[in-house]
């Protein structure tokens, strides 16, 4: 497994385990929207939980609500932000 897909899997595990989403890992596409129409259906409480879990697991602090909107769009956008934070 590449480093990139391992990171995607870790993020999907957070969605399933921490947010207790009733879906299987392979039902979550890397670019499946997390919120809004045709999405996994996350709400504002899920988003808050996700922010805390990402900070705890990857050390990425997301304190700006506007930045959060961009980062929490999909598994891929979260992974991109995590990678970027580690490279800086």
């Amino acid at each position, binding site marked *: 497994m590449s480093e990139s897909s391992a990171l995607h899997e870790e993020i999907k595990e957070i969605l399933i385990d921490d947010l207790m989403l009733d879906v299987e890992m392979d039902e979550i596409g890397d670019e499946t929207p997390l919120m809004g129409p045709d999405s996994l259906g996350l709400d504002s*409480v899920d988003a808050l939980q996700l922010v805390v879990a990402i900070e705890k697991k990857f050390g990425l602090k997301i304190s700006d609500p506007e930045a959060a909107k961009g980062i929490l769009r999909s598994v891929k956008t979260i992974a991109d932000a995590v990678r970027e934070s580690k490279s800086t």
Partner: protein
Amino acid sequence: MSAHAILITGANGGIGNATARYFLEHDESCYVYLGIRSGRNEADALAADFPERCGVLSLDVTKAAEWESSLAKVAAEDRVITVLVNNAGHHDDHLMANMPLEAFSSVIESNLNSVFLGSQAVLRGMMGERFGRIINISSLSALLAPLGQTNYAAAKAGVIAMTGSLAKEVARMSITVNAICPGYIETSAIETGDPEQAKARKKTIPMRRFGKPREVAAAVFFLATKDAAYITGATLKIDGGIF
């Protein structure tokens, strides 16, 4: 991984101090922080009884900056607050027609704003641990709405509403939020009052006695346990049957 700890505000006397002692006596693995603003004799005495498992935090619960600095101290000691007992508060009774704005505002601040500030301050830590217990000490006054307490009754009723609302927000994170409404409890405020008045009050209580701080503490302790995981948004009155 940080060790879990308990923070009890208003812990210098009465219900707060009894609750802290109850935790220390019934759970040998717990660490208890006593949040106090002024008058620390009883808090210091308790901390001296349990020097390895109890610490005192200087904390004015109405000030966000003091919550921040207190929690920074807890984090520096490699602990995280997973049980918060919002107990601090005061009352300043007047008929509304004569109530100075300051008496209204300060009672709302110490009883209601403090619960907001404290809960907000500890929530992220609890979310990270996926475990938390917030126990808010409201009052029977919230339910009885006695005359002379428009400020206090409103603040404590606000605490009950806040408890229910926050409970829904954090339920899926395994954090529970509950309120307790003590009735007449044997605290210094009651003990130093007029004995005749105390006698008359007891007649209004079906159990014909005041409650003991320990009897409130026991309920707080239970709500903080893992076994109380499915109780949230509840309001428990402890009043000898008054209401």
